[in-house]
C-alpha cells in the first residue's frame, strides 16, 4: 500500500466519521451490508512454509503430499550427497592402494618424462 492510498483511506475514514449522521438510513444499511460482505471475504494471508514453497515449485501446490514430498526430496538429496562423498573416499582408497603397490613408485608419475611418454603412447604420430 503506497502513501497516496493511505492518505485517501484516512480522508474517507475521516469524512465517514464526521458525516455518518447525514447519510440516509438506506445508504447506511447498504454500507453495513457491504462491510459485512467485505469482512466475510477477507482472509488473512496464509503463512507458507519453505516446504510448501518447495512443493509448490514442484507443481504440487496445495496438494496434501506437498509437504511430505519436499521433506523426502531434501532427505534424498542429503543422502545422495553423503553417498557420493563416501563413494569418493572409497575410490581414493582403492586407487591409492593400487598406486602404492604397483611396479612403479609414486614419484614416477610426477616425472615430466613419464608424462611425455604417456602422451606419445596415447597419441602415436
Amino acid at each position, binding site marked *: 500500500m503506497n502513501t497516496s492510498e493511505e492518505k485517501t483511506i484516512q480522508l474517507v475514514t475521516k469524512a465517514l466519521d464526521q458525516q455518518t449522521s447525514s447519510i440516509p438510513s438506506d445508504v447506511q444499511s447498504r454500507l453495513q451490508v457491504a462491510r459485512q460482505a467485505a469482512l466475510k471475504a477477507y482472509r488473512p494471508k496464509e503463512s507458507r512454509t519453505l516446504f510448501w514453497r518447495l512443493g509448490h515449485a514442484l507443481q504440487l501446490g496445495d496438494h496434501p503430499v506437498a509437504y511430505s514430498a519436499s521433506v523426502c526430496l531434501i532427505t534424498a538429496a542429503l543422502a545422495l550427497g553423503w553417498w557420493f562423498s563416501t563413494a569418493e573416499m572409497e575410490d581414493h582408497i582403492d586407487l591409492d592402494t593400487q598406486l602404492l603397490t604397483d611396479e612403479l613408485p609414486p614419484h614416477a608419475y610426477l616425472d615430466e618424462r613419464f608424462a611425455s*611418454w604417456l602422451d606419445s603412447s596415447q597419441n602415436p604420430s
Partner: protein
Amino acid sequence: MARQLTKSVLIIGLLTSLSFAHAAPEAAASWAKLSTKQKEALSPIEKEWDKLNIHQQQTLLGIAGKYDQLPKAQQERLHNRLKQWITLTPAERKKAREQYQKYKALPPAQQKTITLKHKEVIASGSAKKVETHKGQLASQP
C-alpha cells in the same frame, strides 16, 4: 510466518548437519588408538601420523584395511612408499593419481615400454651418481 520459516530452516539445518556429520571423516585418530593391524600396516609413518590431516588419515586407514589381503611383495612396496607418499602435496597426489589412471588405461605392451623407459632412466641416473661420486673421491688428495 517467521516462526514457521525458522522451524523449516532449523529442520533443514539439522538434516544437513546430521548428513555431513556422518559423511565427514571422524575425528583424527591418535597413533595409540590404532589397532595392531593398522599399526603394522602404517608402521613406516608412525612418527608422522599425528601430524596428518583427518582426510589423509582416513584414506590411509582404508589402505591399512586392505594390507592383509596384499601379497608379501606388495606389502613391502607399500611400506617403502608410504613415507614418500605422505610428503607429497595434495596437488602432487592428485596428479600422480591422474597419471597412474592414464598409464593403467594403456594396453599392457605400452605400459611395459613405459616401465622399461623409466627403469632405464633411473638406472642411468644412478650410474651417473656413482661416477660423479667416484670422480669426487679421486680428486680428493
